[in-house]
């Protein structure tokens, strides 16, 4: 076991997968000599050479489009898009090709591709460096979307993503890249895609969250004197519907917390799923704590935008006192 932060856990997963499988290669802007702008790929080019850790031209569509070709050609590319705000230029390649190639060719061609993307706010970054677009990609059939909230999950989920036979967008919540450390096994292990984690058990209310918001939820739970169950989805798509619905059937109340804007955010999907599966068990309307339907503000106001323990606590009270 090693005591690692999220960046180190991802770095370790990449090393182990590259050692295990010659088909795995990394590519992206600044991922080589510089080790990535967040240093996630630090030391990997020195270790594996410029053939397997490739500094590419500055072109996101080019990075994803060539990665699709690499994957169709039998490799396991792991491209990095430097910030989630830069996924825009690659959107066409992701949704028009990576997501559709298997269907388009009735599985004659597949795209085993893992797109690593730092995501979310809270690090005082400039515009377009703090967004949360996970619902956009969850809405696109043919792609899996993953977002860990701890170093342990980060390693196991990344290994699963790289070994997955289909395209995965692996969002890395940058706010917790170095926020805390935890014990991470040095041996390989996987965490299945599509399985949520029960962070803590409770009987009064269920919180469903993912990414760095999970940490805000834990703070809210600590401040509350109620018995609250926290579900970390870990995988955005395919969502672990069973984990959510089993918990809500037990507690009868639910608060959903995410950084992304509210309208058509994944919270809406979670709430609708709860309505479909748990209607007669509900004691209160499902509450959502989210970003707002505004452009993510520059960093002076970002903490007002992001869900925090206070807002989450308010929603918990609303649900419990309905």
């Amino acid at each position, binding site marked *: 076991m090693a005591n690692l932060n999220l960046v180190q856990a991802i770095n370790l997963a990449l090393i182990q997968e590259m050692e295990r499988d010659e088909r795995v290669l990394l590519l992206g802007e600044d991922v080589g000599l510089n080790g990535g702008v967040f240093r996630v790929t630090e030391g990997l080019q020195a270790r594996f050479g410029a053939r397997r850790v*490739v500094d590419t031209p500055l072109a996101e569509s080019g990075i994803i*489009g*060539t990665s699709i070709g690499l994957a169709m050609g039998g*490799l396991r590319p792991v491209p990095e898009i430097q910030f989630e705000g830069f996924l825009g230029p690659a959107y066409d390649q992701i949704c028009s090709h990576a997501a559709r190639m298997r269907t388009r060719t*009735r599985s004659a061609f597949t795209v085993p591709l893992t797109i690593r993307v730092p995501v979310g706010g809270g690090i005082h970054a400039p515009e377009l460096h703090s967004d949360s677009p996970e619902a956009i990609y969850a809405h696109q059939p043919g792609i899996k979307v993953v977002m860990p909230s701890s170093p342990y999950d980060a390693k196991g989920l990344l290994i699963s993503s790289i070994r997955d036979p*289909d395209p995965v967008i692996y969002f890395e919540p940058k706010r917790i890249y170095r926020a805390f450390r935890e014990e991470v096994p040095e041996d390989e292990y996987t965490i299945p895609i599509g399985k949520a984690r029960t962070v803590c058990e409770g009987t009064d209310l269920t919180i469903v969250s993912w990414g760095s918001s999970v940490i805000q939820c834990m703070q809210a739970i600590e401040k509350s004197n109620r018995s609250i169950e926290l579900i970390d989805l870990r995988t955005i798509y395919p969502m672990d519907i069973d984990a959510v619905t089993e918990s809500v059937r037990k507690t009868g109340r639910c608060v959903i917390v995410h950084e992304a804007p509210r309208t058509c955010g994944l919270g809406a999907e979670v709430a609708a799923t709860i309505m479909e599966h748990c209607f007669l068990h509900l004691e209160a309307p499902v509450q959502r704590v989210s970003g707002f339907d505004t452009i993510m503000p520059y960093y002076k106001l970002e903490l007002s935008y992001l869900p925090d323990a206070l807002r989450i606590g308010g929603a918990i009270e609303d649900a419990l006192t309905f």
Partner: protein
Amino acid sequence: MCVRALNTPRYTFTMPIQTVFKAEIERISILDEHCEFDEKLGAGLIPDDDLVRLYEAMSSCRYLDEVAFKLQRSGRMGTYPQNMGQEAASLGAAYALRSDDWLVTCYRENCGLFWRGVPMESILLHWMGDERGNAMPAAHYATPIAVPIGTQMLHATGLAWASKYRGESRIACTFFGDGASSEGDFHEAANFAANLDIPVIFCCQSNSWAISVPQRIQCSAPTVAQRGIAYGMPCMQVDGNDIFACVYAVKNAAARARESSRPTFIELVTYRLGDHTTADDARRYRDQAEVDLWKLRDPLIRTRKLLETKRLWDSSKEDAMRQRIEVSVNAAVSRAEEIAAPPTSDVFDHTFAQLPPDLVRQRDSLQTHSLAGEQPVHTEGH
């Protein structure tokens, strides 16, 4: 620090403007529209037997276009893009390449795909609204028909990169139109290929029209070919209706790719004799005189003339070929039409290698509550 020195002009020096780079674009033509043949470039390039086969391949592709048009008009097939007039470009490439080089096409490269061995009914099936037409067998090293314009050049670059990564000698050759050369992905693909030394050949079928938009709105430079210069790769213009010139250019580019892992950009000048697709009416935006001029430059006419000059062909051989083609194309149409629609589960089963539980539920619900049995509605679209 030399701030003072930098800020003090020294008028005694002269700084003549220098030319740091000069470029020119070569045009390759071997068999021109008047059937003049350049022995220097063309001798031995295509053996006579092969030339006969190539002519038959182009003729067969042309006949398929006629049949496909009628199929669409009679409601037996969806929107279809005719390849008419552009047969030589992709065929020349497929002939010049190794059979295990990647052929990454758009949708006007039927002739090259058929040469590669892709069954005619696969292409028909695709335009009949059935994804199984795109299930390209691995042995053909051909990617599916790419409807999203100008995006597949990046896949070709990635495919060639994968071969290079594994130390294989396989290269990739990709096709796209002059309209697609305006897309950002073309430029990103060219930039990646040139800067990362990827063995890929970019073949632009420069056919004058992107639906209704003329080439001058895509490219105000004298040639599309010179776009490649900006990326530091060899580039040239080729008579795309000249099967010899196409073979010559792709052969040289393939040798460069294989030997030095360098890309090439080839502008194949050709002309879309038909409409953009069966949903288009080109009479709305282009003059018949222009079409008539290009009809004289048809790749089939000059190839047949050369064969006749060489006493390899005559009207009885033409008639016999026509009969063979009609039989084989009509048989392909029958095979394609006999393929029944897949079960509704087919919509789901290739979304992922393993379906997530909720997708299984959705699939099962469609099977219980589907509207199967209702007639599909055919509408024309782009």
